[in-house]
């Protein structure tokens, strides 16, 4: 009898009051069974809701860092408020105009970030895109034109997480990488140029060739243009976590990377040129790194302060 009444009379005041109680978690088990036997799905739904939350992408620390970066970039807009007489205001306005004129004429709007040997550096760009610089890497961009033209110059190696928006361009001496909003790695040292796409879509070009990369694809420059390969984009195995992985790569490139990561000088016999290395090292401990390289290549090394000498193993 009761349940029939419930089903047919949703506007019944008493019943509405029960729903109100239910919402505020004030309902006893008996009351619940009595009034909502006709609608267990709603109870189930409210219960599921209790164990739910919104999808949160960023940690508080991450969000705070971004906020402070953006706040400091926009802070220049806020002017102090003072009450002055008209004449005083006008004279201040005039001198401000002159100063602004001088500042606009001579202001250095180019921003430069440099990571020295032995350090990694993460910086935020004005649009809160994030760049992580590997050791001995430099980026520069024009702060003034960033809003209309997201272009920066790169020397070295960096990982980019680009905010969605207009075209984002990375120029290097060896080629150019263009995207809309994505994450990717770019490497340009000496004549060696490499790029790898982690999310989104990336367009890579050098003087002779153009390639479009999708996630899991990378290119490196070879004599004929750009050579495309696949790789596994894994969170834990790239240089940002201090892990350097190589597959049949010129040994000299690996030794150069160790010099940069540990800020050391390495000398090695000239007949190593042309030998290739497959393996990895981490930037946590230089002995481990050197052993990872030397043992499989049948080499050995001697270290004095910041100078390291690699030579052939003599049995």
């Amino acid at each position, binding site marked *: 009898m009761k349940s029939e009444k419930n089903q047919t009379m949703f506007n019944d005041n008493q019943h509405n009051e029960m729903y109100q109680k239910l919402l*505020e978690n004030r309902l006893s088990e008996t009351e619940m069974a009595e009034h909502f036997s006709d609608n267990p799905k709603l109870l189930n739904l409210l219960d*599921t809701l209790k164990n739910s939350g919104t999808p949160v992408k960023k940690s508080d620390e991450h969000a705070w860092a971004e906020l402070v970066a953006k*706040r400091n970039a926009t802070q220049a807009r806020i002017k102090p408020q003072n009450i002055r007489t008209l004449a005083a205001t006008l004279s201040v306005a005039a001198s401000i105009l002159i100063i602004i004129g001088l500042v606009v004429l001579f202001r250095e709007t180019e921003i430069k970030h440099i990571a020295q040997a032995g350090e990694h550096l993460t910086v935020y760009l004005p649009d809160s895109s994030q760049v992580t610089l590997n050791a001995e890497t430099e980026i520069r961009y024009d702060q003034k034109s960033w809003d209309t033209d997201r272009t920066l110059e790169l020397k070295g190696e960096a990982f980019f997480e680009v905010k969605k928006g207009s075209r984002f361009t990375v120029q290097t001496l060896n080629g150019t990488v263009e995207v809309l909003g994505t994450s990717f790695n770019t490497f340009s040292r000496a004549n060696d140029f490499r790029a790898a796409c982690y999310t989104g879509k990336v367009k890579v070009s050098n003087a002779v060739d153009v390639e479009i990369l999708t996630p899991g694809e990378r290119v490196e420059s070879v004599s004929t243009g750009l050579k495309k390969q696949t790789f596994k984009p894994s969170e834990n195995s790239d240089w940002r976590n201090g892990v350097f992985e190589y597959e049949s790569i010129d040994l000299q490139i690996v030794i150069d990377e160790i010099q940069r990561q540990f800020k050391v000088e390495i000398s090695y016999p000239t007949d190593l040129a042309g030998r290739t290395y497959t393996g990895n090292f981490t930037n946590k401990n230089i002995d481990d790194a050197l052993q990872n390289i030397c043992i499989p290549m049948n080499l050995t090394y001697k270290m004095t302060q910041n100078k390291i000498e690699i030579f052939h193993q003599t049995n």
Partner: protein
Amino acid sequence: MTIFGGKDGLSENDYKLIFNQFRRKIYNFLYYKCGDGDTADDLTQNTFIALWENRALVRSDTVQSYLYKIAENLFLNELKHRKIVQNFHLERKSDEPLSESPEFLQEEHEFREKMDKILASIPENSRSVFLMNRIDDMTYNDIANALNISVKAIEKRMKIALDILREASLKV
């Protein structure tokens, strides 16, 4: 509670405390309204930037309703033309253990999809109030203070949300 809002307004330290206390709540509030994580993230950031720019006016007893007001205005400016939320999606709380069978989880997943759809169909004003109560555990009084509206208005919005849930859940 700290008293700020003197001659110099908010200090950097106060600002960080307020950020840590309210960031999630403001993010959730915006997410309930727009159903999009990236938009909610951006608007949350802009809310706190606006707070900093107006730091000379901030008082400790009104900072909460001030934040919600900024957030709501930013949402309205940005999205007043958007009537339907597209990808509204709530997640299982991360601290809930996942010991159930795959069948159960699959069933729960499907149920959650339906729930998300029903929630997305509630008008944004009612949805945000309803979820602040259910998920953020805010009482009607808390919500009324935060949004600077009457408890009666909260009750009205809750009823709209509940009526929709009641109708829709019968069809699930």
